[in-house]
């Protein structure tokens, strides 16, 4: 009898012992907090950048015992699904870095307000460019600190200007003659057909263009309306009423249409898909005299150099006198689902130190948002491209579209974005030559998205 009971009793005793051990209070340890930094909302996911960031992580970890950092990488194409999956799986990273205004808008409700931390630490923001700080101040919160900015400038192919005997556009702002109208006139002089006739000639054949005077604006359509006195967001201040078939939106789209099919200074999207295959920018071909783009095009500067002697000029004024240099910007954001927001802030401010900011902008290709780093950036860029006037980039910061920005949040963000880009594609491809109708269609579509959003968020 006793023998029969011995084994069951022993088994119960062992199970009970294991349960007690598992449920016993754990001793306090001083294990470092692990901060995961999600990279994918902007630059940083190419192999070279990943290696550089991992080196930075190693340096941080070697010098800190309370916090250890780890970078988590995603391609830009997958960042939305990957980040949202992490949130859904309760595996939220502690920092999204670098992240631009568009990334902030995509997950706007997810980011915490950084202003309590800024005030608590009395963080000195005086060295940041004022417009770059404005970019991150939203209605109800401040998200992050400005890491870097990417203002737009006009890139010019000096060889084509020399061949046409046309003076270069001004590199400094303040020249009232440098307007979109002037740019169009210059563009027509440098748009040539296969017989060498420019677009002002009666013998010009628009079906056989071999060189274009202007490559367009490299950004989304929302970078355009501000140049025509409009609101980049194309809606009322309360985000309830679309305003996309009048004013800056209509004028901007009409200008785009005319540049392709009337003045012929810009290639159509079909031309872009054929003549410029394999290139990120038509300017790389050496067959485009001018084009406006952000400074993040710097990764293509070697290709620009291969195409010919190039430089930069100021952004021209619109027909109503507006000088707008569309800007993209990088910052960091702390997800609301982060389990260690305090430590995340600590890591973020370490990354935002001037010397780190300079180093990170070297990795991402941004212009540091600190005024004190401007000369260092100019000297560094001139070391690689000695003949280019990089001061024009710094000057463009004063003309940024900071509030609202072309990437700022709107309701049903991605749907409105896609609708606007689709409208532009109808014009660029020649699918429609009725600009007013295209904008009326866009207006109706976007109003529907706004109504849908506010019906779900009364």
């Amino acid at each position, binding site marked *: 009898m006793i023998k029969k009971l011995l084994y069951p009793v022993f088994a119960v005793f062992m199970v009970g012992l294991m349960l007690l051990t598992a449920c016993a209070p754990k001793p306090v340890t001083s294990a470092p907090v692990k901060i995961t930094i999600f990279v994918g909302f902007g630059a940083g996911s190419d192999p070279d950048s990943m290696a550089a960031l991992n080196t930075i992580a190693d340096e941080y970890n070697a010098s800190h015992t309370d916090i250890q950092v780890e970078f988590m990488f995603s391609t830009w194409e997958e960042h939305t699904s990957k980040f*949202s999956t992490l949130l859904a799986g309760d595996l939220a990273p502690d920092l999204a870095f670098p992240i631009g205004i568009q990334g902030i808008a995509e997950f706007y409700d997810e980011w915490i307000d950084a202003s309590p931390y800024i005030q608590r630490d009395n963080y000195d923001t005086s060295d940041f460019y004022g417009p770059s700080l404005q970019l991150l101040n939203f209605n109800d919160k401040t998200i992050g600190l400005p890491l870097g900015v990417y203002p737009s400038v006009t890139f010019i192919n000096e060889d084509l200007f020399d061949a046409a005997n046309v003076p270069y556009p001004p590199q400094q702002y303040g020249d009232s003659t440098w307007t979109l109208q002037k740019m169009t006139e210059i563009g027509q002089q440098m748009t040539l057909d296969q017989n060498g006739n420019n677009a002002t000639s009666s013998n010009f054949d628009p079906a056989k263009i071999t060189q274009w005077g202007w490559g367009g604006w490299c950004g989304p359509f929302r970078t355009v309306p501000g140049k025509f006195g409009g609101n980049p967001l194309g809606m009322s201040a309360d985000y309830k009423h679309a305003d996309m078939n009048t004013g800056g939106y209509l004028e901007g789209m009409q200008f785009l249409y005319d540049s392709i099919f009337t003045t012929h200074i810009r290639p159509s999207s*079909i031309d872009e898909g*054929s003549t410029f295959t394999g290139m990120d920018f038509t300017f790389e071909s050496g067959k485009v005299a001018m084009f406006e783009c952000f400074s993040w095009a710097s990764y293509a500067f070697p290709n620009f150099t291969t195409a010919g002697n190039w430089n930069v000029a100021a952004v021209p004024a619109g027909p109503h006198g507006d000088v707008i240099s569309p800007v993209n910007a990088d910052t960091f954001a702390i997800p609301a689902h982060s389990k260690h927001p305090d430590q995340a802030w600590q890591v973020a401010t370490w990354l935002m130190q001037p010397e780190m900011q300079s180093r990170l902008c070297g990795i991402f290709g941004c212009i540091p948002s600190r005024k004190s780093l401007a000369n260092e950036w100019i000297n560094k860029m001139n070391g690689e491209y000695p003949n280019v006037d990089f001061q024009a980039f710094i000057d463009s910061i004063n003309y940024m579209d900071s509030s609202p920005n072309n990437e700022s949040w709107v309701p049903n963000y991605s749907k409105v974005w896609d609708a606007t*880009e689709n409208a532009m*594609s109808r014009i*660029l*491809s020649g699918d429609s030559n009725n600009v007013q109708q295209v904008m009326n269609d866009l207006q109706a579509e976007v109003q529907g998205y706004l109504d849908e959003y506010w019906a*779900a968020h009364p």
Partner: protein
Amino acid sequence: MNKVAKPMSLRRRESLWGYIFISPWIIGFILFTVGPMIASLVFSFADYNIVSAPTNFGFSNYIKLFTNDPDFWHSLGITAKYAVIAIPLNLVFGFALAFLLNQKVPGLAFWRTVFYIPSVLAGVAVAILWGLIFNPKFGILNWFLGLFGINGPGWLSSPNWAVPALILMSLWSVGGGMIIYLSGLQSIPTTLYEAAQLDGANGWEQFFRITVPLMSPVIFYNLIVGIIGTFQYFTEVYVLTSGLTGGVGGPAKSTLFYNVYLYSNAFRYMKMGYASALAWVLFIIVLLLTLLVFRSSATWVYYEGELQNK
């Protein structure tokens, strides 16, 4: 008094082992197929953005889908237009190719391999390859048309030619159907052809009176598979056109296929609930089309067993 356990019968023991051996598949099927299907059905009746729990349960997704979403009808229209042209083309080409490769020609094994290989290549790689072929200026297709004095269109860059380009591209993988047709052709008894020859039937009559009817089950199978595959068309169109001007859906939404629209709603607009509703509507559509074809098969599909029993 202790009861003696009844030994398991041999049949039950064999059944038990059978279930044990297939249990990994069953568990995987439940966890990774049935489970997500049930979850998506539940999500289709809610607002669900992946990040937060589903809310607002009801029929609003389905009501909106049918009454207030022009892009739903647009994407369905594009997919249907593609299907109506691509499916018959693939059926005819595959059958014609199989018929030709069922003849005694030199290098038969080589030709069969050459025509079959494209159907086993990865979708993304094939899409990139065709992107180069369709290049309006430097692509081989427009170069070939240029030899005949034809100025080729913009293909994927053009809203009017993007879908025809994708239809043309679909013929690349006709080798998969060809192999099945070939197998069917080789199973047709030669005695039927001999008897028909004796009766004075010419080549065309033999083809339409013997080959086609006896191949009807294979055609039926390829038609069903074609309908299912075409309405799920995604990889190639997404790879080829989502990076073009206009974003997802290509230039002027000309390539906004149904699954591309579904994908956009799920992973770009964060409307997983609405995307789930789109998925179930697609399931119903494909199911109805398949049932329709099944019902019609009684009039045009002939099984050899039926003929012999008559």
